């Protein structure tokens, strides 16, 4: 390279810079280290390597919106009065002045109209909550689709699931606090849910509400849950989630130089400190923009809660939409037996379905590990297409979620599209079962086709777009080999092995025939493994690649002389002549490994 790079910063070298003169910062650091011994921990972590990819920022969005929630939430608590005591509103908002309402609602109005920046903080808080849950869900999908939930990260998956459900509950308790007509309707429904619980339902309702609904304790109690209990749990779990992330080191995409034993990327200080820190400001800025421009939850328009009033089109926040949809399309089943009432119409969609879905989500990594029998550590991510059944399973869950969610807006859909709400409801009752099945099948076949396409690329090269005519007048498209780096990336994945029942071995390596329930389970495992793996397309072997290469060379010999441009096209910028791709295992020597500086925090 002819460019002078001698003056370029190269702080990624292995030797750290030495502090030259004693200075106040150094002195302070020394004082702290004398007492805390932080240097030992810091030397390992301060230059921690994180790989770069846009999809790794999804969880970061959740983290930063959580910080925005904490900051704006503290501001709101300074004025919010969590009380259902009655008061007469005397604030700035004309239309409600002189009206009897709870202190909670009056203080929400006060924050919106009489505290400068109060409305902004309220709207930012609500938008950040929406974003928090959304980002967690998209992050969860990213993790699952890329196989980042596999060993050793299963427990972090479980923590993530807990964060999702706690975040959802935190959202519900939060939007219930202003005690306006809409939030009160939500609490009214929650009372109905509690009463539908078998045996203890009525007692639960009376205990939660401090007596008969609506009582006067629910707002202060929800407030404590919302500002103390759940945030405390969230903080602790976010901390654990981050600690495990640091301990396991981040997963990375396959690529040249990236292996299961290393992590390639940029150091925490300064690159990720700047990038992630900058990203926090960006998220904060975007939420501030939303708080400034997009009205959310205008409680002053709803009026104070009155158990005999309701507004048409009442909807919970979006993340509560899917159980609400299940509730809407559920047939009105109720059993009266032995003098008790069992409300299947409420219990199944609200109390059982979400719990089952959450538990299923939580144990997914363990189910997968049981089927595959894979006990190895995985740090290289999989492309969604290379796990067709897993990808298809999550897509079918997403489809089910989406259909339930749409059912939660069946009244809005009916009004906007001029359809019959009855027909939408009947359609949804079937669609929530049929839709996921179709989605599963389509996604699985789609993934397998993409795998096949990858193999075509490896074996036959990419379509160059050059059409050649042979002496006989036959036309063919010329395929050119893909680069070595790309071939490596495409093949950097394992081979799937279908589990054969009865082939398990005991601790001593001796085949141990299973009996009874275990044998049945073993068979189930074998069948699931077949569903999961049998149709997958495996990457080509070395021999297959060699053979394909010979074949291609032969083809090229035959085509020699045919690839000249047609008359009149001699000066076209032709890919054939400018191909920058290094032919697969061509004569050009591959670049030497690890041209980047190499650091290692082990005692290697």
């Amino acid at each position, binding site marked *: 390279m002819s*460019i*002078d790079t001698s003056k370029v*910063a*190269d702080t*990624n070298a292995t030797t750290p810079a030495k502090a030259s003169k004693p200075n106040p910062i150094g002195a302070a650091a020394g004082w702290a280290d004398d007492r805390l011994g932080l240097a030992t921990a810091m030397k390992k972590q301060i230059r921690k390597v994180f790989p770069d990819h846009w999809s790794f920022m999804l969880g970061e969005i959740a983290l930063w919106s959580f910080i925005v929630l904490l900051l704006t939430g503290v501001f709101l608590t300074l004025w919010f009065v969590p009380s259902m005591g009655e008061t007469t509103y005397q604030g700035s908002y004309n239309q409600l002045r002189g009206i009897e309402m709870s202190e909670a609602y009056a203080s929400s109005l006060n924050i919106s109209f009489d505290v*400068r920046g109060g409305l902004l903080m309220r*709207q930012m808080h609500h938008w950040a909550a929406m974003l928090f849950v959304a980002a967690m869900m998209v992050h969860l999908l990213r993790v699952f689709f890329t196989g980042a939930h596999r060993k*050793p990260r299963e427990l972090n998956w479980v923590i993530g699931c807990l964060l999702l459900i706690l975040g959802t509950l935190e959202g519900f308790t939060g939007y219930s606090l202003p005690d306006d007509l809409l939030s009160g309707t939500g609490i*009214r*429904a929650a009372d*109905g*849910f509690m*009463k539908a619980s*078998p045996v*203890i339902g*009525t007692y639960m*309702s*009376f*205990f939660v509400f401090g007596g008969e*609904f609506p009582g*006067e304790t629910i707002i202060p109690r929800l407030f404590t849950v919302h500002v103390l209990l759940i945030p405390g749990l969230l903080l602790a779990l976010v901390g654990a989630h981050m600690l495990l992330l640091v301990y396991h*080191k981040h997963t990375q995409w396959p690529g040249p*130089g990236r292996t*299961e*034993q*290393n*992590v390639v990327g*940029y150091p925490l200080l300064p*690159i990720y400190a700047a990038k992630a820190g*900058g990203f926090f*400001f960006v*998220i*904060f*800025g975007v939420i501030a*923009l939303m708080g400034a421009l997009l*009205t959310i939850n205008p409680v002053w328009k709803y009026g104070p809660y009155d158990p*005999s009033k309701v507004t*048409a*089109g009442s909807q919970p926040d979006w993340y509560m939409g899917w159980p609400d949809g299940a*509730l809407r399309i559920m047939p009105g089943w109720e059993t009266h037996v032995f003098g*008790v*009432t069992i409300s299947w119409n*409420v219990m199944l969609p609200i109390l059982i379905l979400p719990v089952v879905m959450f538990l299923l989500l939580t144990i997914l990594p363990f189910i997968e590990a049981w089927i595959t029998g*894979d*006990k*190895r*550590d995985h*740090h*290289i991510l999989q492309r969604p297409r290379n796990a067709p059944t897993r990808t298809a399973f999550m897509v079918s869950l997403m489809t089910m979620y989406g259909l339930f969610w749409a059912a939660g807006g069946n009244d809005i859909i009916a009004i906007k599209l001029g359809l019959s709400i*009855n027909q939408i409801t009947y359609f949804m009752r079937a669609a929530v079962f049929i839709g996921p099945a179709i989605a599963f099948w389509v996604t699985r076949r789609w993934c397998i086709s993409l795998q096949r396409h990858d193999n075509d690329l490896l074996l036959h090269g990419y379509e160059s777009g050059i059409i050649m005519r042979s002496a006989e007048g036959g036309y063919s498209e010329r395929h050119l080999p893909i680069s070595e780096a790309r*071939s490596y990336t495409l*093949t*950097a994945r394992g*081979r799937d092995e279908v589990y054969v029942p009865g*082939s398990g071995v005991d601790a001593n390596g001796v085949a141990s025939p299973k009996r009874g329930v275990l044998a049945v389970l073993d068979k189930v495992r074998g069948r699931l493994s077949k569903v999961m793996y049998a149709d997958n397309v495996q990457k080509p*072997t070395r021999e297959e690649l060699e053979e394909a290469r010979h074949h291609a060379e032969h083809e090229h010999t035959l085509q020699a002389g045919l690839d000249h441009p047609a008359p009149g096209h001699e000066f076209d910028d032709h890919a054939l002549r400018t191909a920058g791709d290094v032919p697969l295992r061509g004569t050009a020597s591959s670049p030497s*490994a690890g041209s980047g*500086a190499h650091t290692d*925090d*082990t005692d290697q």
Partner: protein
Amino acid sequence: MNDHDNNLPAVPEGDEPVPNPGLPPHHWRPTDVDPKAEKRAERQVAAFFGVATVALLGFFVSYFAFQVGDNWDTIAGLGASNLMLGLTLAIAFLCIGIGLIHWARKLMTDQEIVELRHPAASSEEDRSTSVGLVLQGVDDSGIGRRPLVRNSLLGALGLVGLAPIIMLRDLGPLPGDKLLHTIWKPGMRVVRDVVGTPIHVSDLEIGDLVNAEPAAIFELDDEGHHVVEGVELQIAKSKGAVILLRMEPGEITPWKGRENWSVEGIVCFSKICTHVGCPISLNERTKHHLLCPCHQSTFDLADNGKVIFGPAARHLPQLPIEVDDEGYLVAQSDFTEPVGPSFWERDKT
């Protein structure tokens, strides 16, 4: 052999079709090799931080310059104060963020570095040492040798867990028969829900729907104070709210025993949905159907409040009404069944 060795990373096997070509060579960026580009990037980063500073000053000015209050739709339907505070804050934070990221991307080194991973598991040696230490500790404590100590401790700890549960008892009173009754009493007038005026039979045309309440919630004592107020009022409303609907008397098909529950085609039903308790308010005027806006349960008021669509399982409770001496609508009695959502003990009434 399908089960793989524990804790080992998934190493590519020997027959990998394509060998790992190693890290690609590093490419210098324009800012690495062109001092002009470097200076330009530096100025850009500083400009972002500069704009952020100006925006923050704008934030402080906006805080004092714009009034809050009820003028919350000054600019394009948005409050001036909220809009300006939000915009300046957003610009400031976005600029700081973009500046930082730009700095990292253009001016900090972009050489990728490699760090080695370690298995998450501890070494076998550490494991056995730890297990040994735990066993030694357990042995020292003698918990295995002294079942009396162990069992008495377990007994005590079991009860410790019960204490906080017992402590929750005073969260609320027991339900008793509270859910079985409402504030309605024989002879109580049915009044309009907002103003509290009684309703004369002649006030209602065919097809008219009135949201109504029991007269008791508007009752004043001698000093002019409400008799029912605060929590009691909310509870009374949450169970006592009713709907009056007048239709052609011939359209009503009452169940046995309900023939005299309506007055000249006027029927009175609980307004509280039997699904999860939302107040029902959407009337299909021509069909005397009532739709709950929360989950779309639909009830036929001509047919004893029967569910004709949606997730509700039970008919709406009907309030038997009659006319008092002055011609106003009054209740014959309380509801004959619990109103609102189902609950476990509902049938034990």
